[in-house]
């Protein structure tokens, strides 16, 4: 193998490692395939440079967009997959479990885990680094909808609370959000 080929392979491997580290939580291929069955699919993949670039187009005159620009300034990536189905049972529990298992490792804290047969399950995981939030993963598995949100980067509770209330989203009451250290979990069956 020539030196040029080796260098090319090494660079590809390095790029893959960097991307994998940035995203941290990988969407399993089975979940990605759900878009074929879904009635509506939302797939947003924005890494750091893309976020910086997109935030340049947020208007400084619009207060909401100005806040959003500030919010994403330190983020390393936003990854969203949302699938809405016509009928129930289009995705398996194993696919959701494959996602959950990735955020059960060290550094991750499950702060919200709601189980509801009728309305579906919602799990919120925080990634902590030096007692600071370094990311958030939301897995919402409703009977006809599966949503995975992965936000990578330093995101304190103030910024998290600011996620709500923007662009017509109802304001999220920060006081009602459980603190990461408490690991509060609400279970309902």
């Amino acid at each position, binding site marked *: 193998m020539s030196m040029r080929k080796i260098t090319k392979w090494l660079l590809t491997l390095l790029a893959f490692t960097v991307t994998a580290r940035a995203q941290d939580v990988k969407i399993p291929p089975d979940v990605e395939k759900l878009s074929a069955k879904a009635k509506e699919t939302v797939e947003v993949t*924005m890494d750091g440079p*893309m*976020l910086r670039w*997109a935030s340049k187009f947020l208007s400084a005159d619009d207060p909401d967009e100005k806040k959003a620009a500030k919010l994403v300034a330190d983020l390393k990536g936003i990854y969203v997959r949302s699938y809405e189905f016509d009928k129930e049972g289009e995705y398996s529990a194993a696919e959701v479990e494959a996602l959950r298992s990735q955020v059960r490792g060290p550094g991750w804290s499950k702060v919200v885990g*709601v189980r509801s047969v009728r309305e579906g399950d919602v799990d919120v995981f925080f990634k902590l680094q030096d007692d600071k939030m370094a990311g958030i993963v939301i897995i919402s598995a409703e009977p006809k909808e599966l*949503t995975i949100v992965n936000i990578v980067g330093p995101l304190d509770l103030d910024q998290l609370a600011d996620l709500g209330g923007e*662009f017509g*989203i109802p304001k999220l009451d920060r006081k009602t959000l459980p603190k990461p250290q408490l690991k509060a979990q*609400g279970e309902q069956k």
Partner: protein
Amino acid sequence: MTVSNDRPMQAEPTESALRNALRRREAPEGFADRVWARVAEPDSRKPIGTRRESWLRIFAVPLARWAAAAAVCVALVVGGIYYRNVQRERAQGEAAKQQLILALRIAGSKLQVAKSKIHQINANRVATDQSESHEEKE
């Protein structure tokens, strides 16, 4: 050496020279006619229009005309491509912005769902605790 009065010694010859120089003389024969004739003559200097024509005369050469036309065409094409790239980049940026807003909207709404479910659980727990304590009192 003695100086007489307040005038210098050579004042008298200078004054006479001046008087001689400033003496009224009649104009030479036909002077007025010659002046009027010069006034009536066209200006010998080149007019402005003629001077401008001098550098435009370069376009009299066919090659220069073709070169100028080609330069204008190149400028138009380059300008058009640049403008289209700017427009495309702006459209892509706007699309990326919409994606970002959509991602934030979904994240916010799912957090809102989690929050409302926690509220619901807390409300149910409080209601259960209150009914239990009420039963115990009875």
